[in-house]
């Protein structure tokens, strides 16, 4: 079978040093996105395990699979988790969730935990939409703008380009930076139009990395207009899959004149982490 260049790696992780049996409160967060699904389990507000995988056509099934995968090799079972929050596009389709919360609140809370309380602006570059969020030192949303009109400038668009360029998706960003001169951005960020434009450039004799540079450039520019609406403040953090693409991140930083905090974890789990943390807060409130 031909190589599928868009296929990013799914994986799971478990904290080696946390025992759930000692935990007072165990909460879960499931972020069913348009492209990927993450399940996070937290014990007393510390990440115990997580899984990150592609969302299938069946959302409830994807949610279940991700949670089972996160809990594999652990004797912790679903019924021992005190509170589970569903978030993301498919949040109403998490059958075992106690509550659903919009991904905007979850990403702000998650970024606050993962990047630290100094974060004021969060840009979530997801599979099928982008959100710019302002938050306070507790991770509470103070303003947001969401552009969910289409897949332009998002993870799904990158997958399409990986396929077109025959380059593994993880290497796209790096490759796009290998240009002597930054090309003009492609004029359309609509994935379908941008793809035909890119094919045109390739046939004209442009090299792969130049075409990718033009696309990453367009993507960064599109997101900048979104950020202008909420006025960007430091510290600035990017969550979601595109945060792993240096080609887009570097260009975005250049255009904004602001450095994004370098992540030390998987940027895709921010929403699910926020969901688990909000779940903890709700469970504690209900106990009182």
């Amino acid at each position: 079978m031909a190589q599928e260049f868009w296929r990013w790696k799914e994986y799971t992780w478990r904290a080696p040093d946390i025992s759930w049996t000692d935990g007072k409160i165990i909460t879960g967060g499931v972020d069913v996105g348009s492209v990927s699904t993450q399940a996070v389990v937290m014990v007393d507000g510390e990440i115990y395990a997580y899984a990150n995988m592609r969302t299938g056509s069946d959302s409830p099934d994807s949610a279940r699979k991700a949670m089972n995968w996160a809990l594999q090799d652990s004797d912790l079972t679903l019924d021992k988790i005190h509170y589970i929050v569903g978030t993301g596009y498919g949040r109403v389709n998490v059958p075992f969730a106690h509550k659903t919360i919009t991904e905007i609140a979850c990403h702000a809370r998650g970024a606050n935990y993962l990047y630290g309380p100094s974060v004021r602006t969060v840009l979530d570059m997801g599979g099928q939409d982008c959100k710019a969020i302002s938050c306070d030192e507790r991770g509470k949303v103070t303003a947001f703008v969401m552009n969910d009109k289409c897949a332009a400038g998002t993870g799904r668009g990158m997958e399409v380009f990986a396929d077109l360029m025959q380059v593994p998706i993880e290497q796209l960003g790096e490759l796009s930076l290998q240009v002597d001169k930054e090309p003009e951005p492609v004029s359309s960020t609509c994935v379908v139009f941008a793809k035909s434009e890119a094919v045109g450039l390739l046939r004209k004799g442009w090299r792969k990395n130049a075409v990718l540079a033009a696309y990453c450039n367009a993507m960064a520019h599109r997101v900048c207009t979104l950020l202008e609406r909420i006025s960007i403040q430091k510290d600035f953090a990017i969550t979601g899959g595109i945060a792993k693409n240096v080609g887009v991140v570097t260009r975005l930083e250049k255009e904004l004149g602001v450095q994004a905090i370098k992540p030390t974890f998987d940027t895709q789990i921010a929403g699910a982490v926020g969901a688990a943390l909000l779940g903890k807060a709700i469970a504690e409130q209900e106990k009182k």
Partner: protein
Amino acid sequence: MIANFGYTDGSGEYYIMLDTDKCNGCGACVPACRAHILELRDNEYAPLAATKIVVVKDANRKRIKYDCAPCKPASAARALRCVTACKPGAIAHSW
């Protein structure tokens, strides 16, 4: 919190800005909107505070370009119905 619903295109920025701190959940704007794009809902953005706020319905978020067209400057220069209906002044528009 300011919730921005809308879009940017070649002709400008078209956003409805809802200030959830000012919104008292009275719902006066809901029937005022002729396109029925607003609804009262639990404040999902602050899950710990059990209050109701007004939001743009999920189904209409991607259709603001069309649903709000009758209230755009090109169609009607009059005061916007949702803005006028809101006593606490929680609704604003970028156009």
